[in-house]
């Protein structure tokens, strides 16, 4: 697949715009998955996917032929997701947490055999987790998702975010501490 990607990139750079189509088709799903895990919003994730492929097309001349296209596009997706989170933080509108409906989360988290109390608690935990994630800075949030959900190493996180490994590690620490503080009351309750 890697060689295929490189052949397609060469074709695009030679003027065949349509050769970019198979690249987009091949990597859209995985970019969407990571974008959703960071933004936790379907519309935002789709925006990140589109922006990622637009941006990568414009930067294709800078792509190092020895590199892996998937890793490269993943890094661009991280930056696009960070931009979306930064923009949302700077907008003084209604906090996303208030718009958030817990119904979907309950379906995802609740054990089918669980009783109504357990269901309610799961729903509450998920809503609080979502709010706690919103309170993290964009860098902390992306670092935490990459470390905890995507199981990426500190080095990979540092490369993806363009920061020093120690800064990436600190971002993960701060994210865990903040999440623990925010969710501590519920943790005791459960």
């Amino acid at each position, binding site marked *: 697949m890697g060689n295929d990607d490189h052949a397609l990139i060469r074709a695009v750079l030679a003027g065949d715009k349509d050769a970019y189509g198979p690249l987009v088709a091949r990597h*859209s799903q995985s970019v969407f998955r990571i974008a959703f*895990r960071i933004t936790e919003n379907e519309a935002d994730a789709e925006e990140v996917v589109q922006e990622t492929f637009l941006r990568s097309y414009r930067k294709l001349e800078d792509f190092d032929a020895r590199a892996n296209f998937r890793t490269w596009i993943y890094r661009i997706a991280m930056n696009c997701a960070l931009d979306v989170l930064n923009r949302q933080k*700077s907008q003084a509108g209604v906090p996303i947490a208030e718009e958030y409906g817990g119904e979907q989360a309950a379906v995802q988290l609740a054990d089918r055999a669980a009783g109504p109390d357990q269901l309610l608690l799961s729903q509450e935990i998920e809503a609080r987790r979502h709010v706690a994630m919103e309170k993290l800075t964009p860098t902390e949030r992306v670092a935490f998702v990459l470390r905890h959900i995507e199981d990426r190493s500190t080095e990979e996180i540092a490369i993806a975010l363009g920061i020093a490994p120690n800064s990436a590690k*600190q971002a993960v*620490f701060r994210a865990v501490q903040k999440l623990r503080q925010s969710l501590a009351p519920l943790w005791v309750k459960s």
Partner: protein
Amino acid sequence: MKHLTEEEMIEHYYSEDFYRAEAETHLQACKQCALAYEELGKFLGSVRAPEPPERSSEYGVQVWQSIQGSLRPYQLKRKRIYFRLPQFAYAAACLLLLAGAFLAGRIWEHAHTKPSLASAPQQSKERVVLFVLDNHLDRSERLLVQLNHAGAEEEVDLPLQAEARQLLTDNRLYRQSAAQTNDPLLAAALDHLERVLVEVANSPDELNRADIARIEKEMNTQGLLFQIRVLRTKVSERQTNAQAVRKGATL
């Protein structure tokens, strides 16, 4: 017995600790740490991200259709072909030129340089490095002072983020070279500074008092400011010494 810190436990949880075996032994021996680690593990185990909604198999094609209109085909640049075909010839010519220039420089140096000035290029290089580093530390100090003052003011209206972004790029280079030149004090301070710069640069467009107060508290910017001032003094001393050596060499 030294207990594990929360940071060490988090590192251990993600299997990124350097002293994994030691941490494991400690956790087996210390009930207090074992309990705290168990709680951390339970907590982190319970944090799960919502599963991304399924996309249809046509999703990639849909994305392509939505963006293809805004993409312009790459023009096969004449310049690129021009460069690609005789690239080895160009590379060889450049190498020859470089080698020629180097040899000419060496011959000229031998012919015109007094023995006492043999170390002059090295000294002038060090003076340039010290000057640039001093300038960087000066700018960083001003940013930290602004940041610390801004936290106490009612309204914040400062171009801190733009400045932080500019400084960030330079700071990475200086940190890497400080690490290579075996200067742990400077490297540690620049690393700390980089974390603050990243935080400021990635903050929302308009930093408010709460943001600044949080950065100050979490990243100990007052302490960092002190470190930077100490470093500046040291760099100034080194600059003065370098100038003295230069004067001595020219006399």
